[in-house]
């Protein structure tokens, strides 16, 4: 057992080292998150204030899951409402989660991105990767966020989220359900996407300060080694955790 723990710990340290090395290389920055649109909870694809076409990317969604206030799964799906995909469930949700496999992307020497493996792109290759995107939204600040099946990277709050912006919030990055060092954490993906990220420590945690008295999208990014080296050099896992701080009563 001790040996197993040591092996896992060494593996995670190796992963952290890879993440720290690879993290300095810019990658495709788009992520997915949840936000309210016209009273419905919508899936957003974009970065910063870019709210791009999520409907045409619904075929890349690999899972959507919802949980009620007791942490029980609730049947949940997406419904296309005009230009946006909205969350559709028959009961209120405390936690909503979605995963997206964005596929293989290879950047050639001219800077052009190809939606294919490096073995299919002629000429010199600058970067090749497989991108995965995840989103988790808490409808209540004290919602229990479970380890979500299919989310290789997940950002979870350590305890209830404070109600006031500026307050500290400790978050933990989980990779395949285990705390991971070296994950980059951005405090706010929509209103401050270019900030210098915090990096999780050996226990997978870091502390951020909540930016907005309203909607917040915390993002975690982890670069891991390729599981198919002939196709791509690395994998990028990008996970958001969103929640809303309350405003004063009207």
């Amino acid at each position: 057992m001790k040996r197993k723990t040591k092996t896992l710990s060494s593996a995670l340290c190796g992963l952290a080292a890879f993440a720290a090395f690879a993290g300095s290389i810019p990658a495709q920055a788009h992520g997915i998150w949840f936000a309210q649109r016209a009273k419905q909870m919508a899936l957003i694809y974009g970065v910063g204030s870019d709210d791009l076409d999520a409907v045409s990317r619904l075929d890349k969604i690999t899972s959507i899951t919802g949980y009620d206030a007791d942490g029980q799964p609730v049947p949940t799906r997406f419904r296309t409402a005009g230009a946006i995909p909205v969350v559709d469930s028959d009961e209120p949700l405390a936690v909503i989660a979605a995963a997206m496999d964005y596929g293989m992307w290879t950047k050639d020497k001219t800077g052009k991105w190809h939606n294919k493996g490096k073995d299919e792109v002629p000429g010199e290759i600058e970067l090749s990767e497989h991108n995965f995107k995840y989103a988790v939204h808490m409808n209540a600040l004290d919602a229990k966020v479970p380890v979500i099946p299919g989310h290789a990277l997940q950002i979870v709050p350590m305890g209830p989220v404070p109600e006031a912006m500026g307050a500290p919030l400790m978050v933990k990055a989980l990779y395949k359900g285990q705390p991971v060092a070296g994950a980059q954490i951005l405090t706010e993906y929509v209103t401050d996407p270019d900030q210098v990220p915090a990096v999780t420590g050996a226990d997978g945690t870091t502390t951020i300060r909540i930016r907005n008295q309203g909607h917040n999208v915390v993002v975690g990014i982890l670069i891991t080694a390729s599981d198919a080296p002939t196709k791509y050099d690395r994998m990028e896992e990008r996970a958001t955790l969103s929640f809303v701080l309350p405003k004063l009563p009207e």
Partner: protein
Amino acid sequence: MKNSILASLLAAGLVIGAASPALAHGSMKPSHGGVVQMSGEIMAELVRTPKGVDIYLTEEDEPIAASGFDAKLIVTPAAGAKTTTALKPVSGNKLTAAGLKLGAGSKAVVSLVSKKDASKTFLTFALK
């Protein structure tokens, strides 16, 4: 001089203004002796009567047509299994679930699906 008086008045106004509540989008006062919940701009009032459960819908203090929704009431009692009952439009902004009894400690979710655009609204009541 004039400028400094104006500045003082503006500052005082700002302080008072900051302390005043903003304009509300809808009253949270029950109109039928029930309990109310708001989601987005829709307010629902849940009233327990001897004949069952009535729901009244308003938006920004104006009644909205109950016939515009497919509605149901999902009840999780303090003990026992969850049940779902259709809420039928009666007239105006009133929906009803005839014969339904809600016990103390139960949780009731009013589920509204707009017939216009299929958008959903949930309002959750913790009943005493």
